[in-house]
């Protein structure tokens, strides 16, 4: 067991002004009234730094929805943490951006849903694109690391090259080409999001060419979507090995999806120290080490590389959180993935055109056969 996590993921709210169909937040979200107070987070940051944590990821929902965000960044920086803000950019004008940078923000990661305005707004369920573009220009005027996170899937992969060039123009230091992962809303909407094999193969070529072309200017990070890979992802760097997530109410989780695993109770920063949560809590201990592994994982040469894949994905797809992640080619349940891919590839013409509606409610009505938009916590 690592003595402490390398990074703390602070899911400071589940509130968000967007409705992205690929969102991996849990379907049951924390209500605004139950969110941790500023003082709670400040204490957590101090503790994290003392514990040895190096990176803090401020995320959500939309972290900008928290009115105390500047204060939180200042507290985190003062505690000695490297601050990453993972944001849609909605709610960030010049003034507040300036305040965040002055407070010590190290890195801002801005999401984009597409290059094309109609498609981007359709995927997000909100007219967000022009604001994001304006923000990207504003970020460039400040001394902060800037990453654009482009979420890709069936509905936009056909114009990946165009999207990459669009992002280049925004001038980030880094670009993440993030294939949608199937948790939360993305799982519910998987049929509309799962790319075809041809899209995935073409994307690999396009990204390789872009990496070469942009070498030294923009760093590109991307991963083949796990359904199409031979081996599973080393989810979170392993259960309870490198990362700790704190949800808006203060529960400590090994990852954002862990609440799908039945029988796991999550302890809270309101009641326990981070050290205790990391070392002693049931949730963090549950899948550490190898004792929980079934075959083939238990004897597999790759077990220290990918740890048998994702527990939450195993749970969601097989009903058994200890099972080998079905995306692994050696998984007993690999057939499940093959079936899903077969159905997904049989219907390559299922790319739906962007719709623009006068209201969000109208948009939901028109697209209800296609997907379900993320909604806010009640």
């Amino acid at each position, binding site marked *: 067991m690592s003595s402490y996590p390398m990074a703390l993921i602070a899911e400071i709210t589940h509130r968000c002004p967007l409705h992205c169909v690929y969102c991996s937040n849990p379907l049951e979200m924390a209500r605004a009234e139950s969110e941790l107070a500023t003082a709670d987070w400040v204490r957590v940051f101090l503790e994290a730094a003392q514990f040895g944590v*190096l990176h803090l990821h401020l995320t959500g929902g939309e972290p900008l929805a928290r009115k105390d965000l500047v204060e939180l960044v200042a507290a985190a920086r003062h505690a*000695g943490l*490297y601050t990453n803000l993972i944001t849609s950019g909605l709610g960030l004008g010049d003034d507040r951006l300036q305040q965040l940078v002055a407070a010590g923000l190290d*890195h801002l990661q801005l999401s984009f849903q597409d290059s094309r305005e109609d498609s981007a707004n359709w995927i997000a369920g909100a007219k967000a694109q022009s604001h994001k573009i304006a923000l990207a220009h504003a970020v460039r005027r400040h001394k902060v*690391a800037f990453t654009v996170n482009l979420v890709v899937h069936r509905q936009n992969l056909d114009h990946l090259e165009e999207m990459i060039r669009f992002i280049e123009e925004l001038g980030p*230091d880094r670009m993440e080409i993030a294939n949608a992962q199937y948790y939360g809303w993305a799982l519910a909407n998987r049929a509309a999001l799962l790319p075809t094999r041809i899209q995935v193969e073409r994307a690999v070529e396009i990204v390789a060419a872009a990496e070469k072309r942009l070498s*030294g*200017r*923009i*760093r590109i990070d991307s991963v083949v979507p796990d359904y199409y890979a031979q081996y599973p992802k080393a989810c979170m760097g392993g259960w309870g090995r490198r990362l700790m997530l704190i949800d808006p109410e203060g529960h400590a989780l090994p990852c954002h999806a862990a609440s799908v695993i039945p029988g796991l109770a999550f302890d809270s920063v309101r009641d326990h120290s981070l050290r205790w949560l990391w070392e002693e809590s049931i949730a963090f201990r549950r899948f550490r080490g190898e004792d929980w592994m079934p075959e083939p994982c238990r004897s597999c040469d790759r077990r220290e590389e990918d740890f048998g894949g994702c527990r939450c994905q195993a749970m969601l797809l097989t009903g058994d959180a200890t099972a080998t992640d079905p995306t692994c080619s050696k998984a007993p349940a690999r057939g499940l993935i093959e079936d899903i891919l077969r159905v997904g590839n049989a219907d390559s013409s299922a790319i739906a055109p962007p719709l623009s509606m006068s209201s969000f409610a109208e948009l939901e009505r028109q697209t209800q056969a296609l997907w379900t938009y993320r909604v806010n916590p009640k």
Partner: protein
Amino acid sequence: MALPADTSQPRFAPGCRWGGSGTERTVLFPEGVINVQGTGRRILEACDGERTFLDIVEELQANFSASDPARIRADVGSFLESLQEKRIVDY
């Protein structure tokens, strides 16, 4: 991009900085950490945006006078080039 020019002034890219404490210095950058020790650490500590690449190479050549100066120059250059590609260092 390529190897640093002699007159270039290598420095941390925006948002990249030192972290860690005491003997183990780490370089913090977006969503990542690199542990640097020994020569790597010395090189990065010299990348203050003022000293030129040539300055840095000459400092190291003076400190490691037993080693082949051309080799030192090549190693420093490729070390910085690899960090530039990761967008950790600018020059």
